[in-house]
C-alpha cells in the first residue's frame, strides 16, 4: 500500500473499451466488490447494439460506469472521476465526460497507428496535448498482461483477453480493495476451466502488484462503507429484481406464473432468469413471435395462471391487438415494457421513456389499461408485485414500464423476507348458482375468474362487444356505451385502491418536480445538490401513471410551477396538462442516456430565478 491514503466520500469510475474487451464483466466485478465492502453503489452499463462492432471502432465502444460512496447516492454519477480507456476509440468516445483533472488510465500499447486511425485520431493523443488537464497514467496493459501470464499454455488471443483483469487489479489497488470477491467469482464461474481461472487471477494479481512495484500512484484512495439502513443486502439489477418480483407475486398469489416472451433487447434477461426457476412452478415459454407471446399469456391467464409477457418498444407495438383482447376479455395479464430508444428499432441498447403514450393511450377503441412504472433497479421487484396484484384484483391487463437504464443498472438492495410480502388474494369462481361471466364485483367492478375445467360454468368470451352481465355477443348501441363506460370506470376506480402520492420537500410553494420511472435518482441527486444553495423544490415521483393517485391533482395546484423531467418530448407533462389543467413544463432529454443530476439542477435553478 502506498504511503498516502486519502479518504473520499464518493467516486465515479468508468471502464471503457472495445465490446470484446470485457468491460461489462470488469464493471460488474468492481461493483460487487464495492457493494460487499458496504459502499452504496449505482451503475450504468452502456454498450452498443452490435455484439462485436469492428474491433477498435467508435461504434464498438462499450462502457460501464459505477458510482460508489460512503454516503447515500441515487445515480451512477454525472461525470467520471476516473476513466479507464482500453483503446483510442474508448478514449475518444469518453474523454469529454471525464471531469477536469480527473484520473485517466490508458492502455498505452493499444495506441498503434492502426488503432489511432480506427478511432479517427489524426495524431496520437498520448503525445499531443489532448490529455492536458487530466492526470494521465499510461500503462502498457497488453505487454504487462502477457508477461504476467508467461508460461501458461494459452493462445496469444486468450492471453490478451485477460488484460481487463489486469486493469481491474490496478483499480483495486487504487481504491484499496481486496481481490477476494473477484477471485471467488472466478472460481465459481469458471469452475470447469481451471486454466481460465489461473490466467485471470494472474492478470488481476499482476495489475495489483504492478502498482506496488512501480509506485504507480502517489496517493491511493479509500471510500468507507455507507450508512445504509440495517438489514441484509445484495447487489441487484433491474431485470433480476423484476424476475424475482414476479416469482414473489406467484408465491403470494399461490398461482403458477406463465411467462411468454420473444427475445428482444433489453428484456431478454427476464426470460433467461425466469427460465432457471421452473422449480417455482414457472412456465417460461419462448414464443414464435411477440404476438404469440402475449396471446399465449392470455391463454394461460384464461386457464387460471398469471400470464406475463416481457418485451421492449417494437414488441409492444406488435402486442397491441392482444392487449385489446385482454381488455375486452377482462383477464389478468402483465405486460412488461423495457423501454428503449425509438421509434421503430431505434436504439436497442439505449434507454428512453418515450413509450408512455403508447402504454396509456396506444390502442384502438376506448381501451383502458392500468400503467405502473419502476423507479430504481430494486424497485422493479416491488412494482412487479404491484402489477400482478392489480391484474388479479381487477381482472385487467396491466402494463409495467421499466427501461434500459433500470434493466441493466444495479444498486444495493435490502432483501425482503418472504413472510413480510403483501398478500395477493385470488378467488376462482366455482359457484354455479347465479353465475354470469360479466357480472361485476360491486367494489372493484371486476368480473369473475371462471377457469375452464370448472363444472357448470361453461361460457364463452371473446373480442366482440359483450352484453352487460351475460357476456353474450351484443351490438346494441346503448349496451356498447354502457360497456365502454364500465371498462373505463373499472380502471379509473383503481385510484381508490392505490397509495396516494406523497411529496418530498415543501408541501406547497414555488416548484414541484414530478417524475416517473428511472429519473428518480437523477431528480433526488439534483435536489441534494440544490439544498446547499438554499433552493428547495418539492418532488413527487409517480409509480402509478394510469390511473394517477387520486390526490395528485390537488398536489399539483399547490405549486406555482410544475416541472416534469422526462426522457421523451413531454409525454407525462402532456397527460398532466390534459388531466388536471396545470401548466406543467417539460425538461426533455432524448439522447439514449439518463439525465445527469446537474442537468435537472440547472433547469430548477432557471425556474427558481424567474
Amino acid at each position, binding site marked *: 500500500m502506498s504511503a498516502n491514503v486519502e479518504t473520499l466520500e464518493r467516486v465515479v469510475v468508468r471502464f471503457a473499451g472495445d465490446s470484446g474487451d470485457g468491460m461489462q464483466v470488469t464493471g460488474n466485478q468492481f461493483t460487487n466488490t464495492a457493494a*460487499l465492502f*458496504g459502499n452504496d453503489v449505482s451503475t450504468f452499463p452502456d454498450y452498443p447494439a452490435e455484439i462485436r462492432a469492428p474491433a477498435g471502432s467508435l461504434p464498438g465502444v462499450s462502457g460501464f460506469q459505477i458510482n460508489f460512496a460512503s454516503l447515500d447516492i441515487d445515480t451512477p454519477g454525472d461525470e467520471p472521476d476516473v476513466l479507464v480507456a482500453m483503446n483510442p476509440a474508448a478514449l475518444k468516445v469518453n474523454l469529454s465526460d471525464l471531469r477536469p483533472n480527473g484520473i485517466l488510465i490508458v492502455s498505452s500499447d493499444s495506441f498503434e497507428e492502426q488503432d489511432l486511425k480506427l478511432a479517427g485520431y489524426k495524431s496520437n493523443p498520448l503525445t499531443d496535448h489532448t490529455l492536458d488537464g487530466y492526470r494521465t497514467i499510461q500503462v502498457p496493459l497488453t505487454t504487462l498482461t502477457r508477461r504476467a501470464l508467461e508460461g501458461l499454455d494459452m493462445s496469444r488471443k486468450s492471453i490478451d483477453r485477460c488484460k481487463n483483469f489486469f486493469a481491474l487489479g490496478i483499480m483495486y489497488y487504487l481504491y484499496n480493495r481486496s481481490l477476494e470477491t473477484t477471485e471467488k467469482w472466478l472460481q465459481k464461474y469458471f469452475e470447469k476451466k481451471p486454466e481460465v481461472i489461473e490466467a485471470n487471477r494472474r492478470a488481476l494479481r499482476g495489475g495489483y502488484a504492478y502498482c506496488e512495484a512501480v509506485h504507480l500512484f502517489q496517493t491511493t484512495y479509500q471510500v468507507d462503507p455507507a450508512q445504509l439502513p440495517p438489514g441484509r443486502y445484495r447487489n441487484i439489477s433491474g431485470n433480476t429484481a423484476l424476475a424475482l418480483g414476479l416469482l414473489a407475486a406467484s408465491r403470494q398469489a399461490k398461482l403458477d406464473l406463465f411467462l411468454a416472451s420473444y427475445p428482444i433487447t433489453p428484456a431478454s434477461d427476464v426470460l433467461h432468469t425466469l427460465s432457471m426457476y421452473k422449480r417455482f412452478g414457472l412456465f417460461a*415459454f419462448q414464443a414464435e413471435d411477440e404476438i404469440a407471446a402475449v396471446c399465449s399469456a392470455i*391463454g394461460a391467464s384464461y386457464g387460471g395462471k398469471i400470464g406475463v409477457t416481457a418485451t421492449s418498444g417494437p414488441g409492444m407495438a406488435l402486442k397491441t391487438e392482444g392487449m385489446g383482447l385482454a381488455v375486452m376479455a377482462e383477464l389478468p395479464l402483465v405486460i412488461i415494457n423495457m423501454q428503449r430508444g425509438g421509434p421503430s428499432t431505434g436504439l436497442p441498447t439505449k434507454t428512453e421513456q418515450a413509450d408512455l403514450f403508447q402504454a396509456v393511450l396506444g390502442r384502438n377503441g376506448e381501451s383502458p389499461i392500468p400503467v405502473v412504472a419502476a423507479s430504481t433497479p430494486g424497485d422493479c421487484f416491488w412494482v412487479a408485485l404491484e402489477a400482478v396484484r392489480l391484474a388479479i384484483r381487477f381482472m385487467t391487463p396491466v402494463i409495467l414500464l421499466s427501461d434500459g437504464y433500470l434493466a441493466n443498472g444495479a444498486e444495493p438492495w435490502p432483501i425482503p423476507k418472504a413472510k413480510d410480502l403483501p398478500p395477493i388474494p385470488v378467488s376462482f369462481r366455482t359457484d354455479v348458482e347465479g353465475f354470469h361471466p360479466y357480472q361485476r364485483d360491486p367494489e372493484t367492478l371486476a368480473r369473475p375468474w371462471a377457469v375452464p375445467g370448472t363444472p357448470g360454468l361453461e361460457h364463452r368470451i371473446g373480442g366482440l362487444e359483450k352484453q352487460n352481465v351475460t357476456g353474450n355477443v351484443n351490438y346494441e348501441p346503448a349496451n356498447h356505451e354502457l360497456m365502454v363506460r364500465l371498462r373505463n370506470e373499472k380502471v379509473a376506480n383503481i385510484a381508490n385502491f392505490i397509495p396516494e402520492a406523497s411529496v418530498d420537500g415543501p408541501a406547497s410553494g414555488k416548484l414541484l418536480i414530478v417524475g416517473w420511472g428511472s429519473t428518480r435518482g437523477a431528480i433526488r441527486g439534483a435536489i441534494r445538490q440544490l439544498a446547499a444553495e438554499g433552493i428547495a423544490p418539492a418532488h413527487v415521483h409517480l409509480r402509478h401513471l394510469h390511473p394517477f393517485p387520486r390526490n395528485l391533482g390537488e398536489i399539483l395546484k399547490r405549486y406555482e410551477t410544475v416541472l416534469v423531467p422526462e426522457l421523451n418530448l413531454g409525454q407525462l407533462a402532456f397527460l398532466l396538462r390534459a388531466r388536471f389543467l396545470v401548466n406543467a413544463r417539460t425538461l426533455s432529454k432524448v439522447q439514449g442516456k439518463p439525465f445527469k443530476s446537474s442537468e435537472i439542477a440547472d433547469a430548477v435553478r432557471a425556474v427558481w430565478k424567474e
Partner: protein
Amino acid sequence: MATTEIGGLTKKDFVSDQEVRWCPGCGDYSILAAVQAVLPSLDIPREKYAFISGIGCSSRFPYYMNTYGFHTIHGRAPAVATGLKIARPELSVWVITGDGDALSIGGNHFIHLLRRNVDLKVLLFNNRIYGLTKGQYSPTSEVGKKTKSSPDGTVGSPFNPIALALGAGATFVARTVDVYPQHLKEILGRAARHRGTAFVEIYQNCNIFNDGAFKSITEKEIRNDAQVELLHGKPLVFGKNKDRGIRLADNGLEVVSIAGGDSPDLMVHDESRDNPSLAFELAQMEHPRQPIPIGVFRAVERPTFDREMNDQIARQIAERSPGDLDQLLNEGDVWDV
C-alpha cells in the same frame, strides 16, 4: 366440486343457447352438428372442453358450443390455445379456424403449433375465400380466381394446407368434407383421440361467395371417381366400380387401372410411417388428373409440447425440491449492515 356425469352426455348438452348465425346453407352447420355429435362419445366431461377460435365465419363456432369457449383475434387462436393447454394440460382444447385465419394472418402460429406438437385439435374450415369480409381471395384460392380483390384473376400459387402441415412436422394430418357427415365424424373422433396436434382440413362450401368450390369432387355422381379414401393398411383403390388404383412409380404416384382383375402392386396406405414423404406425395394429388385423397394422411406419435413443459417443471421440483423464495432472494453475494 362435482364433475359432470360423463356417460350421460348427449349431443344436446353441447348446444349453446345462442342462435346460430351462419348464412342458410353454409357448410359450417354440418361441421357444428358433427362436432356436437362426436364429443359425447369421447368420455370427457363437458367442462374439460375449450374451443378457441380466431376471426372469420368459422371462428364464431365457440359461441354455439355449450363448452368453454374463447373467440380471440385474427390468426392467433393457436397461440392462445397453446397457452391454455400448457396451463391446463387436462383440458381437451380445440382450435377452430379458416383458410385466411390459419394460413394467412396466422401462418406463423400455425406452423409453430405443428412443429411443437401441442396437444390441440385444429379444425381448418377451408372454403378458399374470405367470407366474413365478403369475398376476397384467400391463400387457398385457386390460381386465376376472380374475386372482389382480384377482378383480373389471382396470381401466385395457393397453399396446399395438407402439404404445409406435413412440411411443418404435423403428427396427425387428415382431410374430410362438410357434406360427408359420417366421414367427418369418423375423422373428428380420430383427431380427438390423437395425442399431439391433430390437424384436420375440412372442405367447406361457402354458398354465398364461393359456391360449389368443391362440387367437382364431391357431387354424388362423380365423387367416387374424383376421390380416393385413405384407409390405413389398405391398397389405394377408387372409382365407382373400384376399378382404379394408385401405384408408386419411379417418378411419383400414378393412377392405374385394375379392371379385369389386374392387380399391379398398388400402394398400401401406411399413416404411421415416420417419414412423411409418401404422405406428401399423396397431398400433391390434384383433380382432375388424379383423385383427391380424403382421410388420414399421417398419424404418428411424438412427445407433446404441453406435456414436456409440465414434465420439465415436475422434474426440477423432484430433483431440486420446490423453490424457496427466501433462499432465492438471498442467493449470491449478500452482506449485512
